[in-house]
């Protein structure tokens, strides 16, 4: 029994090598029905050397082999197409994540730098020459403590924010605000947006793209939802938040401390509708003409 199994296996292996004809017809005739060259009638593995006694085997063999190879070509084409598209799309998500990580680092660094920066105590002086300097955030808190508004320091703060965001301001719009969650009010909202580029065509048909001017606004939005709506309309954005503590003096001069949230949000420049945000333009920065 074991010997028979051995012969069966040997015959099978020999058939794979295309030698089944010799062996199957000789020592192991009973094994012939199991040999591979029975299947070879419809494939290209019969080698033609030992044609089978089927009336259509010779006429059909060439066509069958050709159809086999065409099926093989079809399968390989599908696999290759799949592999090609997989390779073309490989890493797209990774690329987006690396980019997003970089912009998150940028916005976090910008927000921290805004909050760490110093300012001269006397307006008009430079940091290098001023006899007395203070943290910008300390000056903002002091300004807010007087009358619960940031008015005296808002231009200094806006200038500082603009300076820190200037390296990316040609491509990005941004929003900076200080929000008090308890009273659901804004202490400060600054919005930097760039107008849509102007596309003009002169008489000779030459198309010229002029970048839009940038505008800085101070806004008084009615609620946080209106700002969040603006950011949603802007598309993909990067946000950084920091908790700060503001002080408010009451009529008797007692200080009340409460937590506020400083937020910096940036997005790729997109023309946006600012209706409903109660924005007032602070400054317009003309675009540099294209070189």
């Amino acid at each position, binding site marked *: 029994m074991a010997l028979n199994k051995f012969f069966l296996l040997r015959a099978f292996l020999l058939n794979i090598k295309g030698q089944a004809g010799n062996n199957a017809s000789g020592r192991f005739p009973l094994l012939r029905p199991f040999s591979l060259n029975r299947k070879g009638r419809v494939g290209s593995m019969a080698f033609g050397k030992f044609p089978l006694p089927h009336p259509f085997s010779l006429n059909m063999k060439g066509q069958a082999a050709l159809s086999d190879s065409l099926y093989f070509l079809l399968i390989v084409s599908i696999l290759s197409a799949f592999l090609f598209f997989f390779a073309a799309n490989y890493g797209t998500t990774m690329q987006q994540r690396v980019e997003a990580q970089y912009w998150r680092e940028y916005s976090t660094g910008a927000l921290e730098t805004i909050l760490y920066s110093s300012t001269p105590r006397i307006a008009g002086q430079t940091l290098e020459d001023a006899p007395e300097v203070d943290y910008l955030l300390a000056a903002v808190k002091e300004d807010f403590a007087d009358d619960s508004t940031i008015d005296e320091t808002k231009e200094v703060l806006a200038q500082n924010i603009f*300076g820190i965001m200037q390296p990316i301001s040609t491509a990005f719009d941004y929003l900076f605000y200080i929000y008090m969650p308890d009273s659901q009010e804004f202490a400060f909202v600054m919005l930097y947006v760039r107008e849509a580029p102007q596309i003009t065509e002169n008489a000779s048909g030459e198309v010229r793209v002029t970048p839009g001017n940038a505008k800085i606004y101070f806004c008084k939005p009615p609620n946080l939802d209106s700002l969040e709506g603006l950011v949603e309309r802007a598309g993909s954005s990067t946000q950084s938040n920091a908790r700060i503590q503001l002080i408010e003096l009451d009529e008797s001069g007692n200080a009340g401390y409460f937590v506020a949230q400083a937020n910096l949000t940036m997005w790729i420049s997109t023309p946006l509708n600012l209706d409903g945000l109660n924005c007032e333009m602070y400054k317009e920065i003309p675009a540099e003409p294209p070189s």
Partner: protein
Amino acid sequence: MSKAGFLRERGFLGPIGDDLPSLIPLLFALMMFFYVFTSAWNAFDTKNSVFNDALAALNVGNAIKGNNYLRGISTFEERCSEAMSNKRVKFIAGLLPLSTGPGQSFSEVKLETLEADFFSDGEQKFFCTNIPEDSGERPSLESKGLIMRSFPVALEFKNSATGTFYVRPMLLVVVTWR
């Protein structure tokens, strides 16, 4: 009729000749598959390399900026030596001053003059690199795979005349290449 004669009559061309038409699509399919496979392999390899370089540039920037606050040249040099442990990419990094007032403006980053433009506090330049000065391995605009990243940081100064400290915003610029 002999067996060979019978076969010839039925159009038998021989073991190779009979299968010759089927070999053409077979070989074509194999060639196509291996071409696409090799291209895909190269695409994976290239993209992985690009990701690793981009992450290395971020790592260099993160090592130097730390918590986005630099206490002066000593902190900068300390973090610079930390960033130099990154062996994957060659890099140059330094600080450029950002504008802080109405009369100032930030000029764009120019690769041609970047090293000269890096900020100096009068004594030392805020400049960091992991390549030797005389190796001639400085990047050019034509360099392939040049990655530039910038990060805002706060730099602390001491005014020796008045004895006051102040912090001003700076831009850390990192340029990496292979």
